[in-house]
């Protein structure tokens, strides 16, 4: 079998992403899980590179590995979550059974969808007919042609997907407000702190100068 470089890389990156994912759900230590998660995410980003979606690959690393997983690690360390232990550390048979039955369902659903939507036939028919990717941003009506350039992302976002973009922005705002409200100290805690004496961060004149 004559493996081309791209094929070889595809297998490597797929193995990294799926293996990393498996290790995430199998590792007992949350920090190990987080590290494997990063590995898996980088694997997915590499798959994006193979698909010539460079912008998405970089975004994947920037958003997931650079921000989301740092947040995860921060929380894991902040709460000092140890490895699973004690009662229920071992998976019960019921759980595993239910998990696999559910997985079977998902697989069945996937197969049925592929079978009846015609995607599978399209995919197999044109297995080795990847179209050439342009550098230029171009659009034919509502169809924005896939290209390597970042500009086509901007073009798509600010024309066809203007409303979803706004909604996404609003979602982020809502998430931000929600997180601030969730992580804010409740009023009675504040009052308790005040009764104890001024907390150094708020009333110290030094901190105002910073």
């Amino acid at each position, binding site marked *: 079998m004559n493996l081309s*470089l791209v094929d070889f890389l595809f297998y490597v990156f797929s193995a990294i992403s799926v293996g990393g994912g498996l290790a995430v759900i199998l590792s007992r230590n949350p920090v190990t899980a987080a*590290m494997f998660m990063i590995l898996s995410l980088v694997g997915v980003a590499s798959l994006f590179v193979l698909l010539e979606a460079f912008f998405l690959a970089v975004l994947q690393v920037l958003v997931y590995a650079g921000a989301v997983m740092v947040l995860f690690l921060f929380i894991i360390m902040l709460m000092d979550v140890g490895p699973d232990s004690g009662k229920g550390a071992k998976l019960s048979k019921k759980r595993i059974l239910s998990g696999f039955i559910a997985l079977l369902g998902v697989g069945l659903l996937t197969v049925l969808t592929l079978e009846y939507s015609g995607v599978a036939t399209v995919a197999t028919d044109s297995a080795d007919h990847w179209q050439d990717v342009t550098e230029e941003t171009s659009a034919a009506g509502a169809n924005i042609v896939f290209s390597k350039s*970042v500009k086509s992302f901007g073009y798509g976002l600010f024309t066809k997907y203007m409303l979803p973009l706004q909604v996404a922005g609003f979602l982020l705002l809502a998430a931000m407000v929600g997180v601030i409200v969730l992580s804010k100290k409740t009023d009675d805690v504040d009052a308790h702190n005040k009764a104890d004496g001024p907390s150094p961060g708020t009333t110290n004149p030094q901190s105002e100068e910073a």
Partner: protein
Amino acid sequence: MDIELIQMLALKVTYAVVMVSVVMSIAGYTVLAERKVCAWMQGRVGPNRTVLPFVSAIPIIGPFLRNLGIFQPLADGLKFLFKEEIVPGHVNKFYYYLSPIVALVPALTTMTVLPFGEFTNAEGHTTPLVLANVDLGILFVFAISSLGVYGIVLAGWSSNSKYPFLGGIRSSAQMISYELAMGLSVLPVFLWVNAPGMTESGLSLVSIVNSQENAPWLVLIQPFSAFLFLIALFAETNRLPFDMPESETDLVGGFHTEYGSFKFGIFFVAEYAHVVIGSAIFTTLFLGGWHFLPWVADPWAPGLIGSLLGVGWFLAKTFCLIFFFIWVRWTLPRFRYDQVMKLGWAKLLPLALVNLIFYVILVTYLDQAAAS
């Protein structure tokens, strides 16, 4: 795999190895520069003892080089190599060994997209000197450099000791806080360069540099963006006003308290590699890269000599910036942790947003004015 592919790969690998060694040695000499400049600022002379035997025999140059401490990085490196490896008993071994590598690799990977010069051949065809001329240059830099924090966080966590742990936690929070301001502060730059009427360039660092040829440097057009970027850069490279993860006076040594010998050396070099790469990125974005002076055409002729001079000029600018990093470190005291957070979220982020909005309006106005 055919021969051509292998040849191309071999060439790329050679370039990469050359670049890694150059950046590493610059990082090593940045350590020396730090020690020397710090000493001079404190009325001392700094390292001036190390010398190679045959160099010391040369009459005037030998003692001069010795007094400059040129051979000190060699001695330091050897010392790190031959020191006894001590691994504390309470650490998580795997992550303890992993984290120095995780800290160093992103610092070195960033430079793949860093353009440091250009070569114009006889036909007038210009090629930028860069390992990979990626359209997404700056995003790539941000993405990879954001991975550098894992080294620090893992080191802090795996040391299984209080102070390193605090250092790791601080570092992760600081990174998330300042990355945002950093990204927002460079957005106006790309907005300006990609504005209608300018050459379209995407997010590539090469075209940013080329847009500053025969034109004012971007630091003159957008001083405020440059200022914000510089502050965020200080925070991202953990340099002194922001060296929360280390803060040797309140956290002993921060994340690398439990590290010794070569593993500590790797952390050390990684930190300085970050400084070198950060300075180079700033030079590329705001100081015109390898181009001579604002508004002035490059005085050197195209060709090999010209491209070498260009690279030299780029390095000179980078070294000036590295000096600035060192200078600030030995001038300013460290922020308190809450001050760092406050500065990042309450000052830098809103200012970066205001800056972005200002340039959006300005670019739109200029565009309208040009159209009418």
